[in-house]
């Protein structure tokens, strides 16, 4: 399922802060398919990797971004998109 290739048939996923620590990886790529056509579907897929993944991705304050914009779970995910999962931001 995990693809090392960076190309038009994959989506890139990044994790930050608490979420990155929980899933123990900074990012990964998935081969895109119609089964991964929304953020919720990507979360469901990733949550099958273990309790640490499902716990992290059901974090009550989880924020999700597609192509650098914060979105809701029902946002579409297309070929080549970059997703990110992280807790509330604390910059400045």
């Amino acid at each position, binding site marked *: 399922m995990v693809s090392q290739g960076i190309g038009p048939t994959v989506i890139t996923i*990044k994790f*930050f*802060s*608490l979420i*990155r620590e929980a899933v123990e990886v900074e990012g990964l790529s998935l081969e895109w398919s119609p089964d991964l056509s929304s953020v919720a579907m990507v979360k469901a897929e990733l949550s099958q990797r273990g309790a640490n993944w499902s716990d992290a991705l059901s974090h009550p304050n989880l924020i999700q*971004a597609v192509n*650098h*914009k*914060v979105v809701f779970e029902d946002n579409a995910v297309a070929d080549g998109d970059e997703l*990110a999962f*992280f*807790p*509330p*931001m*604390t*910059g*400045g």
Partner: protein
Amino acid sequence: MTVLVTKDSIDLGNLYQVFVERYPSAAVANFAGHVRDHGDRESVDCLELEAYPEMAISQLTALGVEATSRYGLHAWQVVHRYGELSVGEPIVWVATAADHRADAFAACEFLMDTLKTDAPFWKREHSGQESSWVKVQTRDLERKARWLGGSDTA
């Protein structure tokens, strides 16, 4: 106008000088935020700022465009550090230039209040052997909420 997201240290005097020379305007406001020696933890030795740099640039640019449209800015600049920062080091610098001071001030506060919760940075405080992620402060959420209604300068 300009967004810089960087691991390098910031020279505030130089940033300011370049900004005012480049964008001559009647009213120039700016703000610098520095690492505190206390926070969620009683004492803080240093701060680790994790960033999602590509999204940070995109978000900060969007906030600058919004500030320009609300307040008719001539120019604006946001510089944000990430990586390891010592106590006292500047984390963030925001400058705004307008015809009138009310607009320059309001835009500068707008940028600071919104970037705190909308730009993808995460602070981790280190104190001796211990460290923890900084929690979002209610105060910051409240200050951001002031701007959601429109271009009220209150």
